[in-house]
């Protein structure tokens, strides 16, 4: 297909979908409000999942369900079932349930806790089947709508991992939704590992204290951090070690008996993260030996690097759609749950739904009018996947 034909097809679809989505703005905003106002902290997503399941039922899905890991799932069976396209969004939030989750709607803005992380995307997932129906779209492919649990922190993307692990056959394409920012096209996930290191002197024998009068856990952790910062990290392929959290001690006057450091390591190459893991272990052994203690290490959140090249037709098409919608495409790497499928070689992208600010703060807000464009881009991308424009062989 010639470039102009391609652009014309996107333009034509865009005009059609924009009108129908605009006509259904209140339905979309109502889903946004209702989804956002249900607190859904990681490991406690049941209420939001149940709401989403109820909405899927309302859209006359025959068998929406909540799986053993709390994920909420619904399918649109395709006419030919030639391809399987997974559209997913995490439904958990980093905010506690006892924080006020009420959303305020202004003229073109909605603000509230967790609205930008990741309630707007979860709400879009809920609205999509109804919008697809109103647009009169019938797919040849099977479309799977998935709201995933346990995506944050210690959750370690468990919902997504388990869902994909238990699928009969892997999806052909994955579109992962994030609330913000519209225009983002995350095509590659870096290799990641997280590590918590604990120094605990609470249970040390009396003998230890005789020989270590001036020792305290904070000092040991501080020395360890000093060592960690000395680990050599290449700038190409880009590799980073982030000292995320340091905590310990109880008062000004008492020696600290317990201290912790939480570290995140990222790299474009799996082998480099593996190397840094070994270096961290060595640092801990070294510092521990000096003080006659054993530092406790816990590695988790291991994700393997993977994703699409910028030249992949799925990335190029997504960028073209974003451009036609008058937003600036931002093609980048990320560490969303898309890594679960991209590391397995499944073509996967993460897209943003709208624009917003202070996304991880209690007073976050999202802008309402771009949501229609956020949904339009998903529908167009689905059409292009269906028609084979995102298959590598059509390059």
């Amino acid at each position, binding site marked *: 297909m010639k470039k102009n034909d391609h652009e014309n097809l996107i333009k034509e679809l865009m005009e059609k979908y924009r009108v129908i989505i605009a006509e259904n703005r*209140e*339905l979309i905003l109502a889903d946004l*409000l209702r989804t956002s106002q249900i607190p859904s902290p990681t490991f406690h997503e049941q209420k939001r999942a149940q709401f989403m399941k109820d909405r899927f039922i309302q859209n006359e899905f025959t068998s929406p369900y909540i799986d053993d890991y709390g994920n909420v799932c619904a399918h649109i069976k395709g006419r030919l079932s030639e391809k399987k396209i997974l559209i997913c969004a995490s439904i958990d939030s980093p905010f506690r349930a006892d*924080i*006020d989750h009420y959303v305020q*709607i*202004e*003229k073109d803005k909605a603000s509230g806790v967790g609205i930008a992380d990741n309630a707007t995307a979860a709400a879009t997932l809920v609205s999509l089947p109804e919008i697809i129906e109103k647009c009169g779209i019938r797919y040849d492919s099977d479309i799977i709508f998935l709201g995933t649990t346990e995506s944050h922190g210690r959750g370690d993307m468990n919902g997504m991992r388990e869902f994909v692990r238990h699928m009969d056959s892997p999806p052909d394409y994955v579109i992962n939704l994030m609330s913000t920012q519209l225009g983002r096209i995350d095509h590659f996930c870096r290799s990641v590992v997280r590590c918590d290191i604990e120094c605990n002197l609470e249970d040390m024998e009396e003998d230890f204290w005789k020989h270590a009068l001036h020792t305290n856990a904070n000092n040991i952790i501080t020395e360890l951090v000093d060592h960690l910062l000395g680990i050599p990290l290449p700038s190409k392929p880009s590799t980073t070690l982030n000292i995320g959290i340091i905590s310990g001690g109880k008062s000004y006057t008492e020696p600290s008996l317990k201290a912790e450091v939480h570290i995140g390591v990222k790299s474009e190459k799996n082998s480099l993260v593996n190397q840094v893991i070994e270096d961290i272990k060595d640092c801990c052994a070294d510092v521990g030996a000096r003080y006659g203690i054993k530092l406790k290490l816990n590695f988790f959140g291991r994700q393997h690097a993977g994703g699409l090249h910028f030249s992949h037709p799925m990335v190029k098409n997504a960028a073209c759609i974003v451009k036609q919608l008058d937003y600036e495409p931002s093609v980048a790497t990320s560490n969303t749950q898309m890594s679960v499928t991209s590391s397995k070689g499944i073509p996967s992208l993460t897209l943003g739904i709208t624009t917003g600010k202070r996304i991880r703060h209690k007073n976050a807000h999202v802008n309402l009018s771009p949501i229609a464009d956020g949904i339009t881009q998903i529908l167009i991308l689905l059409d292009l996947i269906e028609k084979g424009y995102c298959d590598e062989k059509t390059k």
Partner: protein
Amino acid sequence: MKKLNNWLENNTFQHSQFWDLKKLVEKKEERNLKISLCFPTLNEEETIGKEIILISSELKERYPLIDEIAVIDSGSTDNTQAIAEEYGAKFFLASDYLQEEGKMKGKGENLWKAIYLLKGDIIVFIDSDILNIHPKFVYGLLGPILYNDPIKYVKAFYERPINLGGGLLGSGGGRVTEILIRPLFAQFFPELAAVIQPLSGEFAGYREIFEQLPFPVGYGVETSQLIDIYQKWGLDAIAQTNLDERIHRNQSTKALGKMSFGILQTFWNRLSKYKGIDNISLENFSMINVETDENKTSKIITRKIVEQERPPMIEVEAYKNRK
């Protein structure tokens, strides 16, 4: 007491009884009724947008239970009008209508003018400061009316945790009800003591009821409605629905004090009208408080509370002509 218990058993509903919105819409269509929803407002930019969106998407677009959504405003100086119009509600500034009836201002005035401005056979009134608004606030009130012929008026009840900004406090709502209204009802209108939230701002009823009621323009409107409907149509015309929980902003004790003076005045009026207790003069009904200024000097402050009333809408010339 047996009659009261029977009423409580037969005329108290749960919103979840009416969850099947398809059936509710069928019932409305079968009875060929039009339903209007009114939000009375004064500076409610924080909540009015989401109230309109949630009700209109579910009960107008998805299930056509409501035919008309309107905001009737007392003169907001914030963005209430812009937000209401943005999300598709009709907006009426109360003072722009029925000007020949003279100027009055208050929530009751907005409710009274709603009868003139809205077209529905049934009118639902929902306060516009509800943080946890949900379609059940509307269908929970309409269900008892649509399914039960004798019921003409339905009032909401709920738990009332209050929002102090950062989080929710388990109790503290309904203070005026428990301290003022319930004792007064128990003493003078014991049949109404089974109404769990007599002051709730969420209620629905037939136009033919509302148009025959006088409307206090201020705080006394909910109290007067209950007493007047009870007196004219009897207890069986009234029902109540449990809406579970209503979360709203907390009001200061001072504001509740002012509200109590207004309600008390309306109540006195009804005592005089229905019970023949007319040896209490309302001429000089005043709120008397001790207030302390910045120099810590205490003074007696007297404020005259005038709870004006509008006549039944059916007596208003413009309304007669409209019909």
